[in-house]
C-alpha cells in the first residue's frame, strides 16, 4: 500500500482517513499541525459547502473547514471502510457483519438482513434510518439495531466537478 496515498481533497464524505504526510509550505504546515492534521491522525470527512468547496473535516472532535487548495496538500490513506449503519449517509451499502446476539440475528434474518445484503439508506435522522433492503420495500431501522449492523459503502460517488467555477 505504501506510496498509494490519496489527497485529502479527493476523499469522499463519510470516509475515515489517516493523515500520512503534509506537502504544505512551512507556514501552512504549522497551521495544519496546530489544528490537528498530524501524520497518524484520523480524520473524518464531513459535508461540503453548497458550491462543493470548502469542506468540513472532523479532527479530534473539532470541525475544521479547508478549501480544496489546502486539502490537496495533505496526503492520506483511507482506513476504515466499515461503519455501523447508524452512521451511514444516504447511499448503497453492503452488510459485512451483524454484531448482535442470536436473537438479534434472528430478527435481522426475518427482515432479510444478513451478510452480503445490500442496504440502500434513504435517510438517516440521527440513527433512525429509512432503508431499502435489497432494493425492496422501505423499512425503518432504529438506532439500537443500526448500531449493530456493520456495513461497507458500495457506491463511491465521485465528487462533483467544480472546475467550471474558477477564480
Amino acid at each position: 500500500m505504501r506510496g498509494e496515498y490519496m489527497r485529502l481533497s479527493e476523499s469522499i464524505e463519510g470516509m475515515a482517513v489517516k493523515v500520512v504526510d503534509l506537502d504544505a509550505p512551512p507556514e501552512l504546515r504549522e497551521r495544519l499541525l496546530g489544528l490537528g492534521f498530524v501524520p497518524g491522525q484520523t480524520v473524518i470527512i464531513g459535508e461540503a459547502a453548497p458550491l462543493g468547496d470548502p469542506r468540513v473535516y472532523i479532527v479530534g472532535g473539532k470541525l475544521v473547514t479547508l478549501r480544496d487548495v489546502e486539502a490537496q496538500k495533505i496526503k492520506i490513506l483511507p482506513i476504515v471502510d466499515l461503519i455501523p449503519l447508524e452512521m451511514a449517509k444516504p447511499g448503497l451499502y453492503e452488510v459485512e457483519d451483524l454484531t448482535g446476539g442470536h436473537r438479534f440475528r434472528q430478527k435481522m434474518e426475518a427482515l432479510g438482513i444478513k451478510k452480503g445484503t445490500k442496504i440502500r439508506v434513504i435517510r438517516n435522522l440521527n440513527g433512525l434510518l429509512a432503508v431499502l433492503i435489497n432494493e425492496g420495500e422501505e423499512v425503518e431501522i432504529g438506532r439500537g439495531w443500526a448500531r449493530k449492523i456493520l456495513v461497507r459503502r458500495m457506491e463511491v460517488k465521485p465528487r462533483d466537478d467544480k472546475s467550471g467555477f474558477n477564480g
Partner: protein
Amino acid sequence: MTIKVALMGNPNVGKTTLFNALTGSRQHVANWPGVTVEKKEGVALYKGFRIHVVDLPGIYTLGSKSLDEQIARDYLLFESPDVVVVIADAVNPEQGLYLLLQILELRSDVILVMNAVDELEREGSRLNRYELEKHLGVHVIPTVATKREGVSELLDTIIHVHQTRPAHQPVRFRYDQTVENTIEQLEKVILSKCENLNVPARWLAIRHIEGDEIVQWFCESLPPIEGNERKKLSLQIARSRYDHINVIIREAYSGKSAPKRLPLDEAIDHVLTHKYLGIPIFFTIMYLIFSFTFKVAQPLSDLIDISVSRLAEFAKASLGENWLAALFSDGIISGVGAVLVFTPNIFVMFLGLGILEESGYLPRAAFVIDRIMYALKLSGRSFMSLILGFGCNVPAILSTRAISDPRERLVTILVSPFVTCSARLPIYVLLAGLFFPQNAGSVLFLIYASSVFLAAVSSVLLNRVLFKGEPVPLIMELPRYRRPTVKGLLNYSWSKGRHFLQKAGTIILIASIAIWFLGSFPPGNVENSLAARIGKFLEPLFKPLNYDWRITTALIFGTAAKEIVVSTLSTFYSSEGLSFTESLRNSIDPSTALSLMFFVLAYIPCFATIAAIRSETQSDKWTLVSLIYGLVVAYLLAYLVKVVTGLWLGI
C-alpha cells in the same frame, strides 16, 4: 500591586467570555499598533491586587506567520506578562493542549483553564484536574465562563502563581531520540554563540527546527537545517506532542468516548450548510439582519433626528440671530446630529451580528458563501460586511471586526465605500427620474450592478497590489452551537459599537464645523461663500466632465453626507426663477447626469465613513489611499460614462 496576565487559547474556546467574566466593564478596546487586529485589555481588582488582563488573539500555534499568531507570540516574548493563562476547550482539548505544550517550552508560570466543563459533563464525561496537573506540571482550573464558575479560583491562582514563582516547575517534555539529538546539538551552539539569552535555549532550538524566523532575533547565524530534514523533524515534533496529549487525555478523562459531533449540532449543520438550502438560508438571514439594522432601528433614528432638529431650533431661538447661534444649530448640532442618527442602526447591527457570532452561525455563513468570495481573493467572512454597506458604509466597515484575517479585513474596509449606501439613493432617484423617465429603473439597476462590480474588481486589484494576489486562506473551525446570552450580546454590541460614538464623533464634530464655516462665510448669499468659491476654483478641473461650479460645490458639500448633494443642488438651481428640477434639466444633459451618478457612486462616501475607515485601520496612509483611490476611480468612471453615453446619445 499590579499583575500582568495574558489570556491565550484557540479561537472559540470562550476566551472572550472568560475575559469579560474576569474584568467586567473595566475594559479598553483598541487596535494593536499599526494593524487591524483588536487589542482588548481590562482590569480586575481582586484582594488588593490590580490584575491587568490582555486578551490575545485566538491562535493554534505560536509558530506560523499569520498576524494573529505573531501578535500573540511577540506579546509573550517582548511584553513579558507576569502570568500566562491558557484556555482550552474541555470537550475537545487536543488543539488547546497542543498550544499549551508550545507555551510551556517558553515559560513555566502558566495556568491552564479547562473551559466549558458543564458541556463535558452533559456528555457524560468527567475530567480529573489533578491528573492533568500531574502530567503537565501547571495549575489547572476547570471553569464555566458563561456562568462565572471557577473565575474567583482562577484569580486566586493567578495571585498564587505570581507570588510563588518559580516554585512550580513544568514537566519537561521529551521528544523522539533523533529530535532530542538535534535539539541538544543546537542548544550547545546557541549557548556557545549567544549570551544573555532571556528565553530558554531549548525553546530556541525547537523553534529553529520548526523554521521560525524569530530565532534570528535572539541568536543569529544558527546552522541552517535543510528543508526536507526540517519537515521530517517538525512532523515528528508535532506527532510526539499529540501522542503525549492523547496519553494525558486517556489518563485524565473518564467516560470520554471517541470524539463525536453532538447529534443536535449535526442536524442543525445539515440544514444550515445544506447543498441546496444553505445559500437561500444564508441570504434569508442576511436579509433579516439587513432589515433589522435599517427598519427596526428606524423609529429610534427618527426620534434622534427629530430631537436633534428640535435642539437646533431651540439653540437658534435662545441664542438669537447671530453667527454663534448658526454655528451651534446649523453647524455643530445638525452636523453631529446627522451622524448620531446612525447610532441605533449601528448598535442594532452589532446586536444581530453578535447573535450570529455567539451562536456559531457566522463561520458557517463564511463556509457556505466562501466559493464565491474566493474568486475575489476574499473569503466568505467579508460578504456579510459588504452587504451591510448597501444600507450604510459605516456599520459595514465597523462590522469588519468580525473578520479575523487582518489582510482580508483591510481589503474589505477599502472596498466597502464602493458598495452604494442608502444615502446615495436620493441622488440617483432624482437624476434618473429627471433625465431618464422611461428607464429610471434600469438606470438604477445599472448603478447598483456597477457598485457590486466596482467592489469586486477593486478587491481583486487591491489584493494583487498589496498581497501579491495570494487569496486569504479559509482554515477555520466551526464551533459548537451555543445559545447567545443577553449579557454576552450587550457586551458584544457595546464594546464594538461605542467606538463609533467616540472616534467618529470627534472627527465629525470638527468636520461639521469646517463645512458649516465654508458654507456660511462670508455671510450673505451662498453663491459667494467660501465653499462656492472653492467650487468655482475647482470648476476647470471638472470641465472635462462638464460639471459647473454648482455641481462641484454640491459634490464638496456631499462629502459631509451624500443626501446634502440634493439639497445643495436645489439651493443653487432654484435661484433662477424656475422650479429646481426644471432648471436642473435645462442646465445639464442626460450624459452629464448619468456621469454624475457614477461620480457620486465612487467618490468619497462621507465624513462618517472616512472617520470609520480611519478608526478601523488606525492608519492615515490607508485612509488617504481610500480617499484618493475613490476620487480617481470616480473621475475616470464619470469621464468614461460621459464619453460613451455622449457617443451613444449623439450629444
